């Protein structure tokens, strides 16, 4: 088999999935209504923002398991601030700042100490989650209304576009711009493509790696804001497992776990596709229990496709 043909074959699962999803969508009644689509966008927004942060880390050849925990700890910080009746701006700044800091800590250990990213973020997952437990004294802080302004949306004709979905789109667009048009973005790709070569080409690989993890933390902060605007409650177990959903979205969106390949649009599309699939399963009358099963299956197919596509590169 020629390498070219094989690389085309590697794309077949992705094409197939899109086709299947489209067919199912068309067959399901009420799917292609603005209401359903807007609701998918909104439901995907929190994990979607995390997936954008995860994209930076993965492109740089890293891995971030602590996103859900960073979200929870950031939300806990905002919850405390909220009790002292701090303003929206202060809460926003706190969410962003705490997220950045937590991410930078991950980055420090991976880039400077050179600890394995998987183990580092696995331990900070436990540390941040534990810190959220301690900070919240194990109980939920509810009635957090500082971000409630985000819980509405734009009304265009008969279509309601919630702000959360729009923020997700804006974050995606910003990431796309940064990755495609800036030197920073180009360097992130170089870092994940071949860190040694990048360093010898004059790329500051250490600080760049810290930056990718810090961006992941920042998106966790943004996701915390979206989360609080939605449920208005900070719990110690908030967003458990979201990091896996964000990694899954990246994999489905074609961001390579080996680094250096993929992009923000893919990650966002992957996230929307997974959410659409879930909505689909619910709406098409399939039993609810099939959701997790099918989601896992889909991720595996995409991971296998990525591996197949990469195999023929070692000619």
């Amino acid at each position: 088999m020629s390498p070219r043909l094989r690389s085309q074959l590697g794309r077949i699962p992705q094409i197939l999935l899109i086709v299947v999803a489209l067919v199912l969508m068309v067959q399901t009644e009420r799917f292609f209504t603005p209401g359903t689509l807007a609701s998918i966008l909104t439901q995907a927004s929190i994990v979607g923002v995390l997936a954008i942060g995860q994209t930076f880390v993965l492109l740089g050849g890293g891995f971030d398991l602590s996103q859900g925990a960073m979200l929870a700890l950031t939300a806990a910080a905002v919850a405390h601030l909220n009790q002292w009746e701090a303003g929206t701006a202060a809460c926003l700044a706190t969410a962003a700042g705490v997220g950045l800091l937590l991410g930078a800590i991950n980055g420090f250990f991976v880039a400077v100490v050179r600890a394995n990213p998987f183990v580092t973020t696995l331990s900070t997952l436990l540390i941040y989650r534990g810190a959220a437990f301690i900070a919240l004294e194990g109980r939920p802080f509810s009635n957090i209304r500082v971000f409630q302004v985000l819980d509405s949306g734009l009304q265009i004709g008969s279509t309601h576009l919630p702000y959360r979905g729009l923020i997700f789109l804006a974050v995606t667009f910003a990431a796309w711009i940064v990755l495609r048009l800036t030197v920073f973005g180009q360097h992130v790709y170089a870092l994940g493509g071949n860190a040694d070569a990048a360093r010898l080409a004059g790329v500051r690989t250490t600080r760049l790696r810290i930056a990718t993890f810090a961006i992941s933390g920042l998106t966790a902060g943004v996701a915390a804001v979206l989360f609080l605007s939605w449920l208005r409650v900070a719990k110690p177990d908030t967003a458990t497992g979201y990091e896996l959903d964000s990694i899954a979205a990246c994999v489905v969106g074609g961001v390579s776990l080996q680094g250096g390949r993929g992009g923000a649009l893919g990650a966002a599309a992957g996230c929307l596709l997974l959410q659409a699939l879930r909505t689909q399963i619910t709406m098409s009358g399939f039993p609810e229990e099939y959701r997790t099963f099918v989601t896992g299956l889909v991720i595996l197919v995409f991971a296998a496709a990525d591996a197949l596509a990469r195999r023929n590169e070692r000619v």
Partner: protein
Amino acid sequence: MHSPSPETCRARLKGLVRSFSGALALKGVDLELRGGEIHALCGENGAGKSTLIQILGGVIRPDSGTIALDGREVRFPNPAAAIASGIAIIYQELSLVDGFTVAENLALGDEPRVGPWIDRRTMRRRAGERLKALNFRLDPDARVSSLTIGQRQQVEIAKALGRDARVLVLDEPTAALSRAETESLFAILRDLRAKGIAILYVSHHLDEVFEISDSITVLRDGRRIGSWPTAEMDLNRVVAAMVGEAVDVRERSPRKATGPPLLRVADARGETLRGVDLTVSPGEVVGLTGLAGAGHEELASALFGSASLSGGSVEWRGRPHHVRHPAEASARGIALVPSDRRRQGLIPVWGILENIAIANYPALSRLGWIRRGRRRRLAEEWSKRFEVVASSLAQPVLTLSGGNQQKVLLARWAAREPDLFILNEPTRGIDVKTREAIHRWVDELADSGRSVLLVSSDTQEMIRLADRCVVLRDGRVARRLEPPALTEHALVAAMIEG
């Protein structure tokens, strides 16, 4: 030359030919290895030694030619077949599992079992017996990670000889050994020779070759120049055979360096460097060479900020030169083209365009934003100047030939127009045509007043390009050579003589 009697001839290689993407690495080589004899194989880089070893080890197959063991013709479709036929090869890179004990390593792949479990007692006993038979003083229970390089080599030898090996091949076995470890290796080899094993000893270190070998074969440019009993040879004759009688082709008149030195290194010390002085002036090509580990690679890395010196001083344009990162060095006008294209040079996921651009963003961006039009023009201009052959600038670099990959890397740095080019093995593994093009380009660079520090173990290249050459040995300057004294013979002699 010998005319070996057929009874003692363990391995007979006849008419081996092998080409790599069109270039002939072996052009019909014969070699006879006899039991109870240590046979040295000498030759410069690219003479065909590694190819020969790989064929003997079943790693690659010859295009034509035969191998006969004890008079019977054999074919090795894979390394396992060579091992099964009794050929043991000790490569420079050892293949032990660090976390395992000596006994576990010796038994690997052939563990004694009781049902599904490993019979550890038998495993240890066998290892002990094997080590004792070879007179190796090693503890079977010692973890390999706790052993010295010399001891690990002993484990490797014991492992290789375990399965009834009759031919032992060692590729540069002393490269990482101390003198004492070398002595004990030689004692082991003499012992094995007495046991009737045929040993092929491949080395650059001619003094060691004379110490240990019974006969010498010299390869040059993929041909066997000759085989002689070691007693009939001396160092000068071997060097002459290695480099040939070729007239040194210098196609240009010597350049005169202009102005004060751009770079001045004094008493540089580091992991391998033990005090090296060096200057490079505008408009000259200075060669820096030595055997692996002599210090030239470390010095090149340190000048580019990719390694740090522990002592000495470096001046760049008359000012102290402390660079801690390649980014700082390249901002000052220094470029380094690394020797290992795939690992240290290319970004594999990218096409030609981005690979050329990656070192040039200071000029290709404004406030962090890439100027895409400029980037394309720059990549077009420089890939054209270096005559990179590709379907488009988007072609992935891994699909390019080695020569074109190297041109992409040269274009990456040439586009920055640096004042000092550090070229590390610029033509290793590259076809003749590209090699000549790169050599012409280096000439032009120097003629236009730029400086080049040429780090190369390719002596012909050194003769062709360098205005003068600094030869390092064991971290010190062994000799400084200038034309007309700069000859291949003098270079090789300076690298290896004690």
